[in-house]
């Protein structure tokens, strides 16, 4: 494969696409599939065949279009977007291809949900067929890899990433360029690349969507990373709960290998890179890098103390670069447009865009990509469309079990790594759960603590026993049998876990409790002192139980 050959594939693909007068894109990502979008796609195929339109109209399965709440979604080449499409609507939509869109199914795209987004990671999502490499190549895919291989040296690639200001999208926000240069400089014959796709936060589905909608983008990012740091082997650690993502990744790897974009002597150069999948067996802690590495090695997935960091001693004791799915998905555009371009998006310290999975009590649940620095209010009320049923906003939870709940007073805060941390939450991987007045914050804290308790690996004492004790205390508070000393003990345990736990799971497990104690202290007080749940959540539970 040479750059010319790649360009030829792209040309051919564009030519094939141009032959069709019409195109119907049906979302075939997990969200829409769960509301029967596969039968919609089949109905379109059948209808097109019945009409003999095979040369005129193409029906295509594509990735996530974002507005999961209104699925199944179908878009046409004329720019119409249809929501809640059923198999029975196929004929009507095809009839309308030459005229006005079917008004009863139209989903408006001139609304903030679509207008306020800035798509870099998701630029191909909903447009290309994730199961065909030609489509990715047709939208300038693997062009960045070609450029890197033919025009750049590894240090230049690292420099470009440094210049972009990209920070790790897995949650902690470690500067990606710095990580790359550390691995590049680490001594070792054998180096590894790992893609962390063990997305486990409740309510988060960014990585799943990227893998389901545009798997080649992640592969291209990993290839560029491998070239930059001098690695020849890589693993994608993806949780087994994502069967569709796994299937599409496998397809993508096979296709890339067939085209010679993955494997030995890529594009005739001396650069070789082999990538394999490792499936997570359902342990949240395996999202922690050292536990993930242990799991890839075939050991029990438990974290180990750092340093040494994986950049020096990672997989099989060799220098290892480990990044999140979304981080890799940002790489190709950075190389294509330059680090300078990327660094102009976002805030001073948080560059670029971030994909959020908007869930909970918000009108437009789904996947959104916004520039860093946008306010929470814009995300929840503008893009998210606000709270349904005329209820009041109460809190937004970011960062999953490691994050915190932020009340209304933080709505105008810019969304970036520093601001979120200062407010007692974290950016996290991008889960964003909106809550209204029907949510009890103590109950929410208990939910996350229960999660951390069951997901603790049990290696270190503070996390193993501390999360259990905290969960018991929170249970007593929600059952309204707790006393004021219990609250003090809860705070004591928060401090203990945060400072003494071995890994990020235990250290951040108190965050949901601490942030709710800080911003919703009156709710805890009501449960403990007045023995009532202001939101009426805990009361109902107790009555049901009795």
């Amino acid at each position: 494969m040479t750059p010319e050959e790649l360009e030829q594939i792209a040309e051919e693909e564009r030519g094939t696409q141009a032959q069709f007068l019409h195109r119907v894109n049906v979302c075939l990502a997990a969200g829409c599939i769960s509301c029967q979008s596969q039968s919609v796609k089949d109905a379109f195929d059948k209808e097109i065949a019945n009409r003999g339109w095979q040369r005129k109209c193409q029906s295509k399965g594509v990735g996530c279009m974002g507005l999961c709440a209104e699925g199944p979604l179908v878009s046409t080449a004329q720019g119409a977007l249809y929501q809640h499409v059923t198999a029975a609507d196929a004929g009507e939509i095809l009839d309308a291809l030459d005229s006005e869109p079917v008004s009863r199914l139209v989903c408006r795209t001139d609304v903030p949900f679509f207008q306020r987004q800035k798509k870099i990671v998701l630029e191909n999502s909903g447009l290309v067929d994730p199961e065909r490499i030609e489509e990715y190549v047709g939208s300038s895919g693997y062009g960045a890899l070609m450029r890197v291989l033919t025009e750049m040296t590894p240090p230049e690639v690292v420099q470009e990433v440094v210049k972009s200001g990209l920070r790790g999208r897995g949650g902690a926000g470690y500067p990606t360029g710095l990580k790359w240069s550390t691995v590049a400089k680490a001594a070792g014959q054998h180096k590894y690349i790992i893609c962390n796709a063990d997305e486990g936060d409740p309510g988060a589905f960014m990585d799943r969507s990227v893998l389901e909608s545009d798997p080649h983008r992640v592969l291209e990012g990993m290839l560029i990373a491998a070239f930059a740091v001098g690695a020849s082997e890589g693993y994608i650690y993806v949780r087994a709960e994502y069967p569709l993502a796994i299937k599409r990744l496998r397809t993508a790897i096979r296709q890339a290998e067939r085209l010679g974009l993955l494997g030995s002597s890529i594009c005739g150069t001396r650069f070789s890179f082999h990538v394999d999948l490792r499936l997570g067996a359902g342990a949240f802690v395996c999202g922690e890098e050292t536990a993930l590495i242990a799991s890839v090695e075939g050991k029990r997935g438990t974290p180990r103390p750092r340093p040494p960091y994986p950049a020096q001693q990672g997989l099989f004791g060799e220098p290892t670069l480990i990044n999140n799915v979304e981080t890799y998905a940002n790489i190709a555009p950075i190389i294509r447009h330059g680090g300078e371009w990327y660094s102009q998006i976002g805030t001073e310290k948080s560059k670029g865009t971030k994909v959020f999975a908007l869930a909970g009590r918000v009108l437009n649940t789904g996947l959104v990509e916004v520039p860093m620095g946008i306010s929470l209010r814009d995300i929840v009320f503008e893009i998210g469309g606000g709270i349904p049923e005329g209820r009041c906003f109460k809190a937004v939870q970011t960062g999953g079990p490691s994050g915190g709940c932020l009340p209304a007073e933080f709505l105008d805060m810019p969304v970036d790594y520093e601001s979120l941390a200062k407010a007692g939450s974290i950016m996290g991987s991008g889960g964003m759960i909106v809550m209204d007045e029907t949510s009890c914050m103590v109950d929410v804290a208990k939910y996350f603590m229960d999660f951390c308790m069951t997901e603790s690996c049990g290696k270190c004492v503070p996390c193993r026993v501390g999360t259990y004790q905290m969960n018991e205390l929170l249970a007593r508070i929600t059952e309204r049998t707790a006393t004021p000393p219990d609250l003090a003990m809860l705070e004591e345990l928060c401090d203990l876990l945060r400072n003494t736990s071995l890994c990020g799971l235990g250290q951040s497990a108190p965050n949901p409790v601490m942030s709710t104690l800080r911003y919703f202290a009156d709710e805890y007080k009501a449960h403990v002192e007045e023995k009532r749940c202001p939101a009426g959540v805990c009361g109902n539970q107790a009555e049901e139980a009795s």
Partner: protein
Amino acid sequence: MSPVSNIKTLKIDGKDFSARQDETILEVARQNKIFIPTLCDLRGLSTVGACRMCLVEIKGTAKLLPACVTRVEEGMEVTTTSERLDRYRKSILELLFTERNHICSVCVSNAHCELQSLAQRLQITHVHFPYRYPKAQVDGSHPRFVIDQNRCILCTRCVRVCEEIEGAHTWDVMGRGIDANVITDLNQPWGSSETCTGCGKCVHVCPTGALFEKGRSVAEMLKRRNFLPYLTLMREERD
């Protein structure tokens, strides 16, 4: 690398010490008779940093670091005891006491138990966290040894000695979080284990009365660990 740069000087509790660069803070502290509490650490076995008892403060680092795995660095300033560290260590010990059923008065290891002596040394007079009182198993199927899960603190010394020294890997950990347990083979009764060599190393490295020899009554189980540094030394010489 020149031999000069292999030696680092550091301060522990305000006093100056020198150390080889491959030594940990804990090793240097022990050489110089500075006490840092430990539970999972045992000389001759690999380090895991799991019990969190040996956390120390290091100037310029916001996080507390485990002395057992943290290597010395030039100019490092380590504090091994402070009000804060003391409080955390006591809390962690208390959590261990609440986790399973540690009843010293009926324990074979009474007066020879590391958990007990550490609690005494840190002057723990009572436990203020609620006890769990879990139902835990006792496996007496082995002809010579018993495992009493009630007294296990999951330090994984048995797992490590079996794998690293004996080479049998009979022991491992099963389950996660509060439900984690050490098991023999694939959670088979110890007596039916096909990998166990019956060497008894696990029994003697166990810090509490969780692993003991049959026929021992209250306070009779003395653990002998001299073999471990000896074996390690002999192997190092052979290498």
